[in-house]
């Protein structure tokens, strides 16, 4: 089995997919670092060198103004209200939510990447792991060697897990290193609040804990890894089912993007919470965002994603082992 995994790793590395992914991540991180840098500069220009508390206070006032303006949907309004309550809580407890530094950048960037950007990167690597063998015809050699089919597929899946883990680590390391060039590398132990929960339109603060940022990052990246793994597994299934790599990618892309869009507008469609793409925003539960559908919790989302992952694996193996190769 180790030999088989070595084979698969060799193919992944030589296809240079991971290099492409690393490149994309690096470019995006640089882009966001720069835009945030500009944002800070602008703020300095506007308010001068002020305390973060003043800035946060200003943000709260801005948001309040937006709520009172007309033409804003009720959903959006309640979300903004939650945000105000959260910011107020940070203010009351004298905790800076945006302590400048590379760890904070990595935390916020991961938070925003978990439901679309990271799944997309995973998809680039996972989509052709089986289907490319079929479209190139090499599957005929692979499956006529004295190795059982399930072992071949298992070696591919193990390779996928390795690649997914590598990409998530790469994502963290790159966003830390690149943003640190501008913001500095400090801020590992800055306090972060977690444990917000939402009930109705009220922010529940009784379970809130203050933890150091490194611990928060660890939790956050575990969740990112989990989401990446599940998205990878589902893409893996599509790669088995659909011979054509671009077609498989298209299906996954459609699912991910529709998930990103749906998350903002399905609050009244209750059964949508069983779709995997609605449940990708796991880090939202940590930072205290309102879930896309009322009543969704971290445990629920983890369960839904796990079930999807298991189902995708079962389908992949059942199909791959029985499939006739023409």
């Amino acid at each position, binding site marked *: 089995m180790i030999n088989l995994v070595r*084979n698969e790793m060799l193919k992944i590395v*030589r296809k240079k997919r991971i290099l492409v992914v690393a490149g994309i991540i690096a470019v995006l991180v640089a882009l966001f670092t720069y835009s945030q840098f500009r944002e800070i500069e602008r703020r300095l220009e506007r308010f001068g060198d002020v305390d973060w508390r003043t800035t946060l206070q200003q943000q709260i006032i801005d948001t309040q103004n937006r709520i009172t303006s007309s033409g804003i949907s009720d959903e959006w309004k309640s979300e903004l209200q939650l945000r105000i309550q959260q910011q107020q809580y940070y203010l009351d407890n004298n905790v800076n939510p945006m302590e400048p530094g590379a760890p904070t950048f990595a935390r916020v960037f991961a938070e925003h990447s978990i439901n679309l950007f990271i799944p997309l990167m995973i998809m680039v690597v996972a989509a052709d792991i089986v289907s490319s063998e079929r479209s190139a015809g090499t599957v005929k*050699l692979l499956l*006529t*060697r004295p190795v059982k089919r399930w072992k071949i597929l298992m070696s591919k899946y193990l390779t996928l897990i390795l690649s997914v883990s590598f990409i998530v680590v790469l994502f963290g390391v790159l966003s830390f290193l690149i943003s640190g060039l501008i913001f500095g590398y400090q801020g590992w132990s800055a306090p972060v609040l977690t444990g917000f929960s939402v009930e109705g339109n009220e922010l529940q603060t009784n379970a809130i804990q203050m933890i150091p940022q490194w611990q928060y990052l660890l939790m956050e990246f575990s969740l990112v890894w989990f989401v990446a793994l599940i998205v990878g597994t589902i893409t893996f299934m599509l790669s088995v089912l659909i011979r054509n790599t671009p077609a498989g990618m298209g299906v996954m892309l459609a699912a991910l993007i529709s998930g990103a869009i749906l998350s903002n507008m399905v609050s009244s469609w209750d059964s949508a919470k069983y779709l995997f793409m609605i449940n990708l925003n796991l880090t939202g539960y940590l930072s205290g965002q309102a879930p896309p559908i009322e009543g969704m919790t971290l445990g629920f989302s983890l369960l839904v994603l796990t079930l999807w992952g298991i189902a995708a694996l079962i389908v992949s193996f059942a199909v791959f082992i029985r499939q*006739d190769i023409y």
Partner: protein
Amino acid sequence: MSEITLSVKGLKKTIGKKEIIKGIDFDLKRGEVFGFLGPNGAGKTTTIRMLVGLIKPSSGSIEIGGYNVRKHFTEAMSQMGCIVENPELYSFLTGWENLEHFARMLPEVDRNHMKYVVELVRLDERIHDQVKTYSLGMRQRLGIAQALLGKPKVLILDEPTNGLDPMGIREMRNFIRYLAEEEGLTVLVSSHLLSEIQLMCDRVAIISKGSVIKVDYVENLLAMQERVIWQAEPRDVAKEILAGFTSVTDGVDGALITPYIEGETAGWNRALVEKGVEIKEMNRKLPALEDLFLELTGGETID
């Protein structure tokens, strides 16, 4: 030399309600080159894919080196090497890396054997180049090197000369003969070209519409069907005289076609000359696959 290395019994494949392969039986012996002959769409590739375990047969059994392909897949596959259709290897790896890749899927292949195989297919100069820079002939040879890695008893090659130039075809033919005669391999070769099968195989199975019509030694098959094409003047007289000896059919451009019978055809020629018929052309000819087919399938069209 009569050890049976590959045995196929009652092989059938049904897709939906359509029976694609309608019961195929044959046995291959050690050291022989066996041809699998049929037009495109006759079921050659489907049968070969069942032999190598890519397609599950609906019924029947396949044994390679005594192991059933379905029940003892790994044991059966380690007796066999194959190229199915094109020699598709990883084009982004070098030839050597490809061999290493497939060697890792086998129980213990030492590097000396890998080098030996590379030399056997004469790729030693280019083996460390990327496969995408190889010509089709080189890929074909690399494919065979890959198939020989596991020291198989049976080699299955689907259309091995497809897309090769005349020189490459000849090389491939000699190589296949060498493998069978010197290395004692059983080689199963499929083709839709009779000329190819004729030059390289000992025995041949003719397959049409999913069943084997005939399995025989190549010489027998061809002798049975060899014919003579006559161009003679006056044509009517010639036809009458020939009809007295054997069956005559009309060919294109006023030609007359008779079977070739060793020791008799020369006599017909003498008779024609004695009757004053001027013979312009007398051509002993191997039948085209199409004719052979028409003959064997009783005039059914090939589709």
